[in-house]
């Protein structure tokens, strides 16, 4: 959803490479050099870490899409989104264990049916939750200064965290470990396990469904129109409020799917994980170009890879202590050097 009016490029500034361009390119070059050296030194580790990064990237993509959908339509950073995701993960853990009675190490067709059922429940739960949040907390502020819904979003985020805290307590909760860890392939010591593949296998259809929904359906058209100009679409007979609610519903459902995948893949959840992961996913959305669906996916995979490389590689990698700092440094650098993101267009907001 590329939404904002396009500005003509400024012809005067195009000729000479500016300081920011040079600086940005230097940073990218350094990053590539670092990756290549690592690849040459430990090729099989590199490939394995690449696959791990791809998997986490898929989960980030689902969350990042939620941010980007909501930002595209309301220009609101929905800080509560990460916490919706966290509640989705908790919901999945509860449903999988209590309703479907899954136990760790179980296998067979029952597991697949149960996982699918949990997916539907988690998506429905998070979608409803997100749409409710919009109705209660953001809709009354539609015409308020833009600071107001942003502050409300932070408040909602804290409330949801505390809901999680009250529900599951302050410690990590264990999630049933049902995804099989057997190998899909093993090429020269590089192994790929089923639990990683399943994350991708669930993510990709969801993404295709989303793109179809936004690009091909009537409701998707309404979403795009509302994102472009709310008043004009209202005049064209689009029910703006319903469209926004629908967008929040979809975003929440994506967060629910991500929550399920995260719960089953990582197998532990804590009440404050959503906010951190949400920020990382938002960074991904900004990296890809906020409001741009393919951009969000691309950005999320980049962030997932960078995180995995940082934590896994051995040659001059800062290590997991610094993951957050690196992600936020990327966020800041992106906003400084290329506010429109990798795939985005320049908007009045970002540039």
């Amino acid at each position: 959803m590329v939404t904002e009016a396009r500005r003509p490029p400024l012809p005067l500034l195009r000729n000479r490479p500016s300081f920011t361009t040079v600086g940005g390119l230097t940073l990218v070059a350094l990053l590539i050099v670092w990756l290549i050296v690592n690849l040459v030194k430990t090729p099989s580790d590199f490939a394995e870490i690449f696959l791990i990064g791809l998997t986490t990237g898929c989960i980030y993509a689902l969350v990042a899409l939620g941010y980007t959908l909501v930002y595209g339509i309301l220009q609101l950073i929905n800080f509560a989104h990460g916490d919706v995701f966290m509640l989705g993960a908790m919901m999945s853990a509860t449903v999988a264990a209590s309703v479907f009675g899954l136990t760790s190490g179980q296998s067979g067709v029952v597991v697949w049916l149960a996982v699918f059922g949990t997916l539907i429940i988690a998506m429905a739960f998070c979608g409803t939750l997100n749409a409710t949040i919009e109705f209660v907390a953001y809709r009354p502020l539609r015409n308020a200064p833009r600071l107001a819904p942003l502050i409300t979003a932070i408040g909602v985020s804290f409330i949801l965290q505390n809901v999680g805290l009250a529900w599951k307590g302050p410690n990590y909760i264990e999630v049933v470990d049902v995804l099989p860890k057997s190998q899909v392939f093993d090429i020269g010591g590089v192994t790929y396990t089923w639990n990683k593949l399943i994350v991708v296998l669930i993510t990709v259809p969801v993404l295709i469904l989303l793109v179809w929904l936004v690009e091909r359906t009537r409701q998707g058209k309404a979403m795009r129109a509302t994102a472009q100009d709310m008043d004009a679409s209202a005049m064209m007979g689009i029910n703006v409020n319903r469209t926004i609610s629908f967008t929040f519903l979809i975003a929440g459902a994506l967060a629910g799917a991500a929550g399920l995948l995260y719960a089953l893949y990582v197998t532990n959840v804590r009440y404050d994980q959503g906010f951190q992961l949400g920020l990382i996913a938002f960074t991904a959305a900004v990296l890809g170009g906020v409001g741009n669906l393919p951009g969000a996916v691309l950005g999320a995979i980049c962030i997932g890879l960078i995180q995995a490389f940082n934590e896994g590689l051995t040659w001059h990698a800062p290590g997991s202590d610094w993951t957050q700092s690196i992600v936020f440094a990327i966020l800041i650098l992106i906003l400084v050097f290329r506010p429109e993101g990798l795939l985005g267009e320049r908007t009045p907001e970002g540039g």
Partner: protein
Amino acid sequence: MAIRRRTGFLDPVRERVEVLERRVLGDDAGPVARRTFNRGLSAVIVGFLGMLILAPLYGFSVAAILAWLVFVVLYVPPWEVIPRVGRFVRPLLALSLAATYPFYALNMFTIPIFGAFPDVATGVKMLVFAMMAIGLNIVVGYAGLLDLGYVAFYAIGSYTVAWFASIQFAHQNIHFWPAGVPSSLPGIHISIWLLLALAGILTAIVGVIIGLPTLRLRGDYLAIVTLGFGEIMPQVARNGDDFFGTGFNLTNGPNGITPIDSPGFGSFTFLAGHGSFFTPDRLFFWTAILLVLFTVFCSLRLRDSRLGRAWIAIREDETAAAAMGVPLMRTKTWAYAAGAFFGGIAGGYYASFKSATFPGDFFFNISVLILCMVILGGMGNIWGVMVGALFLEYLDSEGLANTGAWLNSNLGLNIDVPKYEFGIFGLILVVVMLFRPQGLIPSARRKAEFEVGVHDEPLYNATHG
């Protein structure tokens, strides 16, 4: 944008009050008389309600009646009509009340639900946070830039004082007017008073450095970038004991830096105090009051300056302000620097008071807590922000525990209320934004912005808050 008129549930009450007012004062009473009448009425109602609640619970309390009388003297008479000195009466009265607080803190009555009045050490914390909130108010309230990483400035201030007034850099041996530090003690020891200034300046510089690349961005992007800085800061502090395996210990990691020198003069330190009159808590408390006074003074003067008016112009309509010749970048950077300056001083002073600084003190929660103070009190209004800060920091350190204990014992519940502290603060943010976005004690101008909107109609008639 349509003007939203709220019909509140208090409207019938308001109508009755107006009728009563006309009956007492006549139809052609001046605004001063009417205001005084209204304030007197509310003072009577507060007193009556207080008696109704307090007397059955705690019996007859002299201190409570005295407190009510003080409130009446402060609030009701139209002090501002006295020429020249009138406008100073209320602040001075409030100030003297605050300054003498350590003497009567222990003799105060118990507030229902909230419990006892805060002790003096909590008072220091409340004042420090008031200072930070007033600093953040410059950024959020005046310039309208949402800063979600204010805790970074607090952290930098704390660590500045910690580095230069402790044994952290033990291979150095630099002493410069420290108070009560034997010259044999290794490490850098500089007078806290100088360090407070240094902390402020250093933080302001960092504020500019953070600001310059990011202030080009509007609104919410700025919020997320400041949030990023706020998240990076504690991580740097936590991992700073061994930077990327170089072995350089900058921040002493999760153990934090402790002890930190105490402020003082010569061989006299605040930590030791002097006799039973100058106890450490009282000394820190009075100094904190001086610092808050300094912050309030600067903040008020800044607001009324050319720069302050430029901030408000940017807040109300950035494009229009730019068209009128307000230099956006420079003005915003100054807002950042000014806000950061006070955050740094407050952080430094707090570190010296606690005699320690830990990375765990600087999480995103604290940024939101300070933001919540500004929002609850009323963005843009110093007095509102101060009240918000004092109240919320009181809740944070004592009030919530007391309230929780009261709830549990009286309603038979078993909830660990302080555990849900930040959920409660989040709820405050949401409720304030939905029902009273201008805050409890709003500035008139900010209120108009929230009610009327800022983009379509110029606010030529809005009076200055």
